[in-house]
């Protein structure tokens, strides 16, 4: 009995320590939020005010809402991220399925290709893409930015998805074929429905990746009206100067979709991040 209570006490201590570690580690996230809720004069208090008082929404109601560039940037990012997600799913899902379950040549080579491609720094693609897009009139266009984002999103999506399709038993697909399914209908009606968690993971990771993407937006959208919110935010760091509360408010708005998606769909994200590492 005493051993049991000792272990309960130990676990409680561990939980308390874990809470402390997590809180300390996420201090920058809290600080972003706290600063965004402060009045201009309070951000320069020494020592720093740990809790905003009074809580002020001015940075949101005045700056974020009224700044035309921010609204435009959010719209651009939404279009780019949604477009990237749709194209990525359309291209990567059948490919991942084929590499897992169909009779395709050079499977090992293709898997390696999709992995190696992910080692390429974005700058290596942004530079030639700028020249290619300049000649094809794709600079400052949604199509160009979506294309650029997909270049790295598709290989990543295939890598994440393939294990999901590998876990669909081959017998199930064979059985569907005996029942009259073609390769195509077996994919649509049998393999896809059981792989929904994988599809959600890939959709979420593609969307979030494109939402936070910076290099392509910086290099391929010089026109302010076409810039994603990440590039807009980078520009504001100069024009806002020391208006840290306003800058943090914009940062919160940029981070918000990520945080919301993360809270509601985190098991898919964590699953996607660990899929390979946990299965052997």
């Amino acid at each position, binding site marked *: 009995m005493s051993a049991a209570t000792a272990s309960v006490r130990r676990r409680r201590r561990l939980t308390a320590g874990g809470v402390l570690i997590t809180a300390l580690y996420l201090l920058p996230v809290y600080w972003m939020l706290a600063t965004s809720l402060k009045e201009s004069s309070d951000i320069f208090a020494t020592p720093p005010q740990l809790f905003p008082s009074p809580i002020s929404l001015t940075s949101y109601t005045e700056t974020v809402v009224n700044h035309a560039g921010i609204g435009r940037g959010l719209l651009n990012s939404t279009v780019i991220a949604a477009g990237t997600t749709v194209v990525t799913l359309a291209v990567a899902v059948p490919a991942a399925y084929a590499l897992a*379950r169909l009779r395709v040549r050079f499977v090992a080579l293709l898997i390696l290709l999709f992995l190696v491609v992910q080692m390429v720094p974005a700058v290596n693609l942004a530079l030639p893409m700028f020249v290619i897009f300049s000649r094809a009139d794709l600079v400052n266009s949604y199509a160009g930015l979506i294309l650029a984002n997909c270049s790295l999103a598709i290989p990543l999506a295939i890598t994440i998805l393939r294990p999901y399709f590998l876990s669909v038993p081959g017998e199930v697909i064979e059985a569907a074929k005996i029942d009259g399914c073609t390769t195509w209908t077996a994919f649509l009606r049998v393999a896809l429905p059981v792989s929904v968690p994988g599809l959600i993971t890939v959709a979420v990771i593609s969307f979030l990746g494109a939402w936070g993407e910076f290099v392509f937006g910086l290099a391929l959208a010089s026109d302010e009206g076409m810039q994603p919110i990440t590039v807009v935010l980078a520009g504001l760091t100069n024009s806002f100067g020391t208006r840290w509360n306003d800058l943090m408010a914009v940062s919160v708005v940029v981070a918000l979709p990520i945080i919301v998606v993360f809270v509601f769909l985190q098991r898919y994200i964590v699953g996607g991040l660990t899929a390979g590492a946990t299965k052997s």
Partner: protein
Amino acid sequence: MTTTVTEPGTANGTTPVRAPQRARHWGEHLFVVPAVVFVLATVLYPLVFNVDLSFRDVGVAQIVTGGAEWVGWENYADQLGRDEFWHALVISLLYTGLAVVVAFALGMALAVYFNQRFPGRNVMRSLLLLAWILPTVVSANVWRWMLDGSYGLVNALLEAVGLVDGDLFWLARPVPALFAVVIATAWSFTPFIMILLLAGLQGIPDTLYEAAKIDGAGAWRRFTSVTMPLLKPVNLTALLLCFISTFKTFDTVFLMTRGGPGEATMILPIYAYNEAFEFFRFDTGAVATTLMLVVPLGLSVFYFRSLRREEAA
């Protein structure tokens, strides 16, 4: 969030495709053709195009019109003879090396802690991933504010414990600026490493720790004699993956220092970006990016080898 290979389980090229005894089903290739075409067009073609650019004299006019003159190895000679290029390479390796060491040490500590059994650990593990998944533009901005010389939280905390006296302008002085970008980068990568290592830790049977305990091994001894040796393949994979991803990093440094002060944090990706987009020298920029590619691609050979070994283990 940076795009990285997060799915190490698939490098095993020997995955059984149901043995095709009869004729190949060519129709089934249609599933994979769009992806292959896409990667050829949006990754391999630009890379080859970039190599081509690196051998030409590309002026501002030729960016749009094309038809730049072929100059052979001239641009390579120019870059390799420039101190700034080598400086950027050294800074890149220094920045990457330091960030990987910090992220790995912290990631390992967190992984060991959160591998213990206690209520709430899964929620906390997930919460920590927030640092990894936050857009780098956001985290870089927050760190810029946290490290502000006069009103930053970091200086206030350091002052409170007596480590700093007066204002320390992190981003305005060469060595502190390098540490600042290392800290910000490591902060993002640490939770990712933690997750990779946790997966490895979960594969170590409890009985081994019990046995070590009975033999009188303390916590540190159990870590060095049981955990570390058994985690070796996972460690190597995580280190290589983290090194490659950090080496590619552009946003964090660009947003915090733009490579400055002076050239103190001028990493290769920013150097190459400046060549092309600041000075409109797309030819030498192409040389810098092409040479830069050697590091991640070279390391990826070891990465794939370690993945295979990890799977075999």
